């Protein structure tokens, strides 16, 4: 597949395209920093880790912390393991990887293969389209069926929720217009393709410019929170939660005699009670 930006470089210089990409990156950085300052996230994480250290039962050294950081990246970041709901997890994985592939290939296409004499390898153009398709697949699936307003609160898919929907709508419109533009440009429809390109640029500007107001920055906050949770569990503070007791351990039996008396020495898995069904009654 071809590089759709190559054809556009006849109307818009590659320099401007590259400046736009840099501007979007700066908007993301700026928006995230402003968001963090507004929500006082840094202060919150710092206080949290101080509290954890105060209640810590054992010290977690630098090496162990690095190990936990790697685990956080490998599980929570790369496989979105925080999701218990399978559909949400799958949709998030599609959307996340689609977004990453789309953004990275866009940057590579614009910086390396647009305006220069080298034609982009077919694989790169193919990946660009695949990224946008994945983003659309995960995003539309989320929008029509998984979005909590729709799944649990009886809101119809065509009813919006203001700031809460800013991020997903920005993502969806960017990816959809990008794909439509590429298709119509390849078909040679001239002005209509230009209109779609303009809509694509507007959507992506809204997406990256609204970082302060939308949920965009969750991609930075979530891994930080997950890492902090792992450290709190590792150092024994566990956010003041009780430990996980092994019910077949004789020491637990002597500490808490009710357990062996009423449940036996090796209680079975009791199955799910209130967690057996998804909460949908609101």
């Amino acid at each position, binding site marked *: 597949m071809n590089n759709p930006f190559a054809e556009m470089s006849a109307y818009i210089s590659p320099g401007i395209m590259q400046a736009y990409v840099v501007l979007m990156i700066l908007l993301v950085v700026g928006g995230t920093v402003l968001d963090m300052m507004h929500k006082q996230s840094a202060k919150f994480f710092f206080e949290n880790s101080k509290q954890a250290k105060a209640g810590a039962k054992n010290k977690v050294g630098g090496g162990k912390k690095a190990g936990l950081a790697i685990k956080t990246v490998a599980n929570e970041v790369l496989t979105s393991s925080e999701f218990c709901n399978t559909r949400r997890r799958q949709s998030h994985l599609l959307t996340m990887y689609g977004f990453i592939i789309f953004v990275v290939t866009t940057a590579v296409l614009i910086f390396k293969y647009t305006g220069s004499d080298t034609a982009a390898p077919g694989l790169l153009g193919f990946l660009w389209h695949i990224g946008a398709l994945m983003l659309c697949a995960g995003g539309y699936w989320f929008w029509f069926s998984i979005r*909590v307003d729709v799944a649990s609160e009886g809101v119809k898919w065509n009813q919006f929720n203001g700031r809460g929907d800013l991020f997903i709508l920005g993502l969806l419109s960017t990816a959809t217009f990008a794909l439509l533009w590429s298709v119509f440009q390849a078909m040679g429809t001239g002005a209509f393709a230009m209109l779609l390109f303009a809509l694509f640029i507007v959507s992506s500007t809204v997406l990256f410019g609204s970082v302060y107001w939308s949920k965009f920055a969750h991609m930075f906050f979530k891994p930080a929170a997950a890492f902090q949770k792992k450290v709190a569990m590792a150092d024994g503070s566990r956010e003041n939660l009780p430990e996980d007791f092994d019910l077949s351990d004789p020491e637990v039996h002597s500490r808490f005699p009710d357990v062996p008396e009423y449940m036996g020495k090796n209680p079975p*898995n009791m199955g799910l009670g209130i967690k*057996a069904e998804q909460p949908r009654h609101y």
Partner: protein
Amino acid sequence: MPTFVRMTRCDGCGHCVDICPSDIMHIDTTTRRAYNIEPNMCWECYSCVKACPHNAIDVRGYADFAPLGHSVRVKRDEEKGVIAWRIKFRNGEKDMDLLAPITTKPWGSGTPKLKDEPAPTQDQRDSQLLYSEPKYIRFDEGDIHTLKSNGLRMKKGVEL
């Protein structure tokens, strides 16, 4: 303010919303996280605290009863069938762990099969014990009242 939700731990699943007996746990529509909409109506029953799968909810007791510095956290583990409390006292010295069973057999396995039980006899229905019960319980008008026997239907969309 009784229960509060730690936003970094909440994922908006809604278990607390479903279980709150006062219907005061709601989901904020912008951030998609749970929060207590009416803390002064909360009776600290701890249902939401126990129901939260991520242990995101904690209780800040009223200052006259539970001054600051303590920590009471609970973890209800359904699959193990136990509930664990950890109470840290504000003198910084006492840190209690409590563990108790909440079921002795798997959930749902102890439901009595009322169909297999014999129906009440005429003597039981006529007995003086049911004197002050409404006529539906006394079966004055015959058999038990159901929606079907009254010609009614459950409307579609009503969640039980």
